[in-house]
């Protein structure tokens, strides 16, 4: 028997694949643990660009004044009569007002000491009512 072709080394020439699944699972668990799915949610608003101030006729403004205690004073453009309500009621009021005047702008004026969540409540009601023209301001005279 010829010994010419006999292998001398007995080392296995194949790459070991038995641990491949282990490596895959290791990486899998690593990425499972480090994954954070985006949870960025909120109420989107568009801020005016600098110097982009337009004069709006008082007729088209609905003043929504957010007081410190979260109660909302509603004043229609030119009139001086003030209507008090809860933030939740703004949704239905806005729907009524905007059908009467499609050019209406909501001017939300918040008292400087009022908690953020009251402004959010009003913004929420306006967005639920589908309002798009919203101006967020700080209440200056009170």
């Amino acid at each position, binding site marked *: 028997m010829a010994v010419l072709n006999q292998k001398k080394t007995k080392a296995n020439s194949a790459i070991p694949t038995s641990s491949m699944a282990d490596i*895959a699972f290791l990486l899998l668990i690593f990425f499972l643990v480090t994954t954070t799915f985006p949870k960025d*949610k909120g109420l989107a608003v568009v801020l005016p660009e600098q110097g982009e101030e337009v004069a709006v006729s008082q007729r088209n403004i609905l003043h929504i004044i957010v007081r410190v205690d979260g109660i909302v004073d509603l004043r229609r453009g030119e009139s001086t009569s003030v209507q008090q309500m809860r933030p939740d009621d703004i949704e239905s009021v806005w729907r009524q007002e905007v059908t009467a005047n499609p050019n209406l702008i909501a001017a939300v004026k918040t008292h400087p000491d009022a908690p953020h969540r009251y402004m959010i409540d009003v913004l929420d009601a306006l967005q639920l009512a589908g309002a798009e023209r919203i101006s*967020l301001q700080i209440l200056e005279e009170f």
Partner: protein
Amino acid sequence: MAIKGGGFDRKSKAASNIPDSSLADIAFLLLIFFMVTTVFKMGKDRPIEWAQASATEKIDEKIKNILNIWVERDGSVWVNDRNIPLEEVSDIVRPLYAASQRHLVISVRADRDTPYSYIDSVQKELVAAGVVRVVFATMLERQMRGIRR
């Protein structure tokens, strides 16, 4: 000779063991899914109480184009784990906004009890920085309308 199995011989020839040859394939599929969807967190969250709103919607922008501005109850402002004086917010935001080709969305994450004057100041800083798209971060408020009204 006793009948094996009490006479109940296995009739079906279907394999009774779970096939595990595709296990590694499933593992790799999941692995690649999580590799692709993984986004490492940019900054730590500040401890705030979220405001709630039922019109809450997802921000339609890539995560890398969202900048979080945290406003705490005492009016301190945090951006990317750093406490920043209110007046410097526009200086911080302006270069980031330019770098994002004006795609940057600012997520204002304010505590529900933050006085509005601080929010207004942040807003004015953002206007000064030329930012247009702002989101007031809120939690979704689930409400049962029929009962509440």
